[in-house]
Each structure stands twice: as structure tokens, then as C-alpha cells.
């Protein structure tokens, strides 16, 4: 166990440093001089020089990189040049929004995906299975901005049941927060849920086709017992792998959803800073997302380990 974890952790560190170097270099190469970017095309050399000193850009690039990493690791994400506010302070309000949306969407996705996937697997030879398959195809193909717009038009504008956008902090009024979360979570969750449906279906059908399911049934296991005690358990490995990927993709979906429902989350913050050309802040925020995805993958690896007991035996 410990060796396995240690190896995974090493892989995590390697991935962290490689992506950080990549992001750092990309920002320098494509973005050019962050100081010039910040001040615009027509800035004077003196002003640029002043900003460079202020941001530490005059020092050797290797030192800049390590300083950045050390700051990141110690939790110092710098100051937004435009607003003069600490990035940490801005994040404190943005991250809860993004996490709420991600979790909400995941809950919706899992609630849709697992039951429908299992039903569709059990009925895979029958008409209802095919119908479910058809709807999950539509769900996968439907873009968020379209399903989101439809949802807010119907539930928000037509029925007036739920707010069509914006955000109320959890500490202010959690009931309102929940109400604000419903439509974006569904909009984002439908697509992901459809993907999960399809994967659960395939994984379960594949497992139920295996000889050892027949063996179980030959010794008196009922069809449903076989489905739950063998089918789902053995199908969980491929499903967890897919879930890990889905969570990574969730980040992309969050950007669109936050914009669509004007939610002040992490993606909005990145977008704002891109627009205001505060490239060093963007660099930090992107790195946060990278760390988030790496952590999710790390968790997936660990759950793999706890699901597949064979990995523990040598």
C-alpha cells in the first residue's frame, strides 16, 4: 500500500513540476513580457522598467520560476495589479462558488448517470434500453449553453420558479444559494450524467457478459444479486477511471456555466484577469486548476486501489 501511494505521490510531484514549468514558459513565450502586457502597447520604457522591478521581472528567469513556486506552495498568490487586492482574498469568494457548482453538477450527473446506466444495461436487449441509449446520446450531444439557456428560459423566465443567474453567498442565505445552484448544476450535470450513463451501461454490460457471472448464477445467485454483487463491483474500476476524466472535464464546463449564469466563480475570475491582461494572476489561477485536477486524479488512483483488492496482494 505505502509503496503504491508513494509512487503515485511521486508521479503527482513530477506532473506538478512539469506543468508548472510548461505554464511558466508558455506565459513568457506567448504572453511576452508580463509588464508590457499589463501596461499595453504604448507604454514608455521607463514605466515598463518600473513595473518589472516591482514584480521582480528584472531578475534571472530561473530565480523568478523558483520564487513563483515557493510563493505558490506557501499560499502566496500575489496581488492583482489592477484592483490592488490580494489574489487570496479574491479567491476566497470565488472558489466556494466554483466548488458548489462542481459538486452540484456532479450530484446531478451521478443521480442521472448511475441509475439510468444500470437500467439501460439490464434492459440492453429490450426496447426501453435502446430508448435510454437514444436519450443519453442526445444528452451527450447537447451543448451546455443551449441546455442552460432552455432551462433558465423555462424554469426561470416562464415559470419564475428559480433565479436565472447570479449568486448569493452560503453564509448570507443558504436557501438562496441552493436556489441559485439548481439550474446551473442541472445544465452542467445533464451532459456529464449522459456520459456517465453511457459508460456505466457499457461497463456493466461488459461485466455481466463475463463467464464468472454465469458461474455465480450456476450456484444459485439470482440475476439481480449477480448484477449488484458482481456486476457493479467489477464494473466500478472502469467507471472510476471515467469519473476521474469527467471531473477534469468538469472544469471546462464550469467556465461556460459560470459565464452563462453570471456566477462569480474561479472561471469568471480567470476570464476577468485575461481581459485586464493581468497575466501573472492568470498564471497563478491556471496553476490552481492544474493542482485541482492532479489532486482529483490522485484520488482516483487511490480509489482504484481500494476497489481492486488484487493490487494489494503481491
Amino acid at each position, binding site marked *: 500500500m505505502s509503496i503504491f501511494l508513494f509512487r503515485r505521490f511521486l508521479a503527482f510531484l513530477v506532473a506538478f513540476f512539469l506543468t508548472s514549468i510548461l505554464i511558466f514558459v508558455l506565459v513568457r513565450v506567448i504572453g511576452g513580457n508580463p509588464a508590457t502586457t499589463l501596461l499595453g502597447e504604448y507604454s514608455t520604457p521607463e514605466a515598463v522598467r518600473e513595473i518589472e522591478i516591482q514584480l521582480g521581472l528584472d531578475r534571472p528567469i530561473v530565480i523568478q520560476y523558483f520564487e513563483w513556486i515557493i510563493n505558490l506552495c506557501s499560499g502566496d498568490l500575489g496581488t492583482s495589479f489592477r484592483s490592488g487586492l490580494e489574489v487570496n482574498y479574491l479567491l476566497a469568494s470565488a472558489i466556494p462558488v466554483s466548488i458548489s457548482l462542481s459538486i452540484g453538477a456532479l450530484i446531478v450527473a451521478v443521480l442521472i448517470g448511475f441509475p439510468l446506466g444500470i437500467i439501460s444495461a439490464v434492459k440492453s*436487449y429490450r426496447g426501453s434500453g435502446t430508448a435510454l441509449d437514444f436519450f443519453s446520446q442526445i444528452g451527450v450531444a447537447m451543448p451546455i449553453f443551449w441546455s442552460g439557456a432552455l432551462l433558465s428560459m423555462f424554469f426561470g423566465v416562464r415559470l419564475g420558479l428559480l433565479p436565472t443567474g447570479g449568486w448569493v453567498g452560503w453564509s448570507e442565505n443558504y436557501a438562496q444559494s441552493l436556489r441559485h445552484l439548481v439550474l446551473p448544476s442541472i445544465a452542467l450535470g445533464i451532459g456529464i450524467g449522459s456520459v456517465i450513463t453511457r459508460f456505466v451501461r457499457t461497463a456493466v454490460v461488459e461485466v455481466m457478459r*463475463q*463467464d*464468472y457471472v*454465469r*458461474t*455465480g*448464477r*450456476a*450456484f*444459485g*445467485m*439470482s*440475476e439481480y444479486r449477480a448484477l449488484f454483487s*458482481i456486476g457493479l*463491483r*467489477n464494473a466500478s474500476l472502469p467507471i472510476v477511471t471515467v469519473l476521474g476524466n469527467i471531473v477534469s472535464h468538469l472544469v471546462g464546463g464550469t467556465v461556460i456555466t459560470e459565464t452563462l449564469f453570471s456566477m462569480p466563480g474561479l472561471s469568471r475570475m480567470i476570464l476577468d484577469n485575461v481581459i485586464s491582461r493581468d497575466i501573472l494572476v492568470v498564471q497563478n489561477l491556471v496553476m490552481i486548476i492544474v493542482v485541482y485536477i492532479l489532486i482529483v486524479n490522485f484520488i482516483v488512483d487511490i480509489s482504484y486501489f481500494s476497489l*481492486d*483488492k*488484487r493490487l494489494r*496482494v503481491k
Partner: protein
Amino acid sequence: MSKDLLTVKNYSVSSGSISAVRQVDFKVSENEKLGIVGESGAGKSMLGLSLMGLLPFGWESTGSAELAGRELVSMSEKDLVGIRGRDISMVFQDSLSALNPMKKIGKQLEFAFKHAEVSRSESFDEYILTLMHSLKIDDPELSLQKYPHQLSGGQRQRILIGMAVACNPRLIVADEPTTSVDSVIQRDVLDVLISNVSRLGASLVLITHDLAVVSNYCEKIIVMYAGKIVESGPVVSVMGNPKHPYTKALIGSHISLKHIKSGMSKRLPVIPGMMPAIQAIPTGCAFKTRCGSATAACEVQPPNFLVGERTVSCWHIEDQSE
């Protein structure tokens, strides 16, 4: 004369218009070991699965198959769940795919026991260990803690036998139990199977493509070709004096060391061509296209002629002697 345990009459296994097993009749008595021989596609595996009620989706059995007076063909899934493992059980072919790769051997054995609620005088663990002993598995405690991939093919196959005999079933169907192991291990596995069947006083249906296995381990034999029983009867008479041209050819093309030691370079006779696919079985006798003695009469399906204790489905039985 012992009592009949399984009586199969006019029994077919089909999916739509395609039939894997076509109107077969046979009996298995108590304590009897019956071998079903045929090449792949003869329908022998589908016959075995259908008796367990484990046919793949879309396939169904018709006719009658009575196990100790209970009709299996019309039996509900619920009742089938009740008899599987307890009254009828099965040893599967490929031990690696037939065992759940994610569960320890012990857990899988436990399930085969638990469900059947065997009344036991000794403790559960003792019972399992006694069984492991009868399976000739070395170091049983350690083996129970292992996953299927950590055992050898022969050990896995014996574990499958253990699961099949765990609940004292009356009939054990073994579907090619030794095709996935090599010849040295084959004999160990078969010995374990037979000794456990005898220990329980159960009956055995041994499905195999290997004539040698049947002639060494069974009392009765059924030879299947394209879904039909072409010849059946006591092993001694069928193997010693085959009547059906297919049985003759099958025995003739079998290589044995005895044969080699005696006649060294003698060429094996072969059956030309191959068995028709189940979608394209010709009318009349299915073997006529490969048969040396086929005549116009073979356009009509021959009935099962009784010759002494055996049945032969052929229009050209030259001698009627046993």
C-alpha cells in the same frame, strides 16, 4: 436397475429458427456417469447450459427435461435459482474466466456454500477445509486467501469442481472441464472430479470433445453431431464396436500412443470436410455430406434405431450385433 434422475425427451434448444440441439432423448440414472461427445458446434455445450437454465439471451429450450420428477423446461427463474447448486450444478470450462477475478477464492467458495444452506455438523471453515482436501489442493488455508490469477490452471479448475460439489447436488454437468489445462494435469483434475462425484453419490454429465476422456471415465456415452444424438449407449459397446459412421470415423481419427507404438507410420484416416454450421444444417441426415456410405435414403432423417442397449441414428447399420 437404478432409478432415473434426469429424463430428457424430444428436447430442443433454439433461437428463432436456428437450433443448437434438435429433438434429443436421453436418460441419466442415479450414480451414473454419462459422457457427451461432439465437435464444437455439435450443440453439447448449449445442451448443458440449457439444463441449468443459463442459456444466453434469445435462446430457449422446448420439449421435456425432468430432474427427479421436476420439469426444468417450464420452471420459473425463481425456482431455478432454488435448484441451481443444490440439485443441479455445473463445472465450467475456462477456469480463469469462470472465476471472479476480483474476489478471493475463499469468498467465492463461501458463496457457493452459503446460498445452499448446507446442514453441517462441523464448522463452516472445517467443512471448506475438508472439501479443499478432497480437491487435493495443497496448503488450503493459503489458497483460500488468493485471487484466481495467483493459482495454477489445474488448481483453479479444482476450485470450480469444489464449488460445483459444495452443496451435494444430485446432478453435476461438467462442460469441457479440462480443455484449458495440459495433459498431465488433465488426469489429476478428472480424478478429483470423479472421486467427488462418487463421494456424493451424484450423477455426472461430462461434456467433452475428447473420446479418450469419456472412454476412461464414463459408463454411458452420447455422440452428438449437428445438434442430434447420432449414437448412444454403454461406453464399452459404443467405443468397442461403433455403429454410426460418424462415431466410427471419430474413433478412427483419434491418435493414441498405443496406436503409434503398434503401427508406427500408419496414416490416420480423416473425415473429409467439416460439420455444417447450425444455420445451414441440411435436411435428412446431417452427416450425409461427409459420409462414405450415404445413399438416397439419407435424405430422410433416420430415427433412433435400437441395437441392443444403444440407439443409432443411421439407415445403414450393417450388423445388428452388440
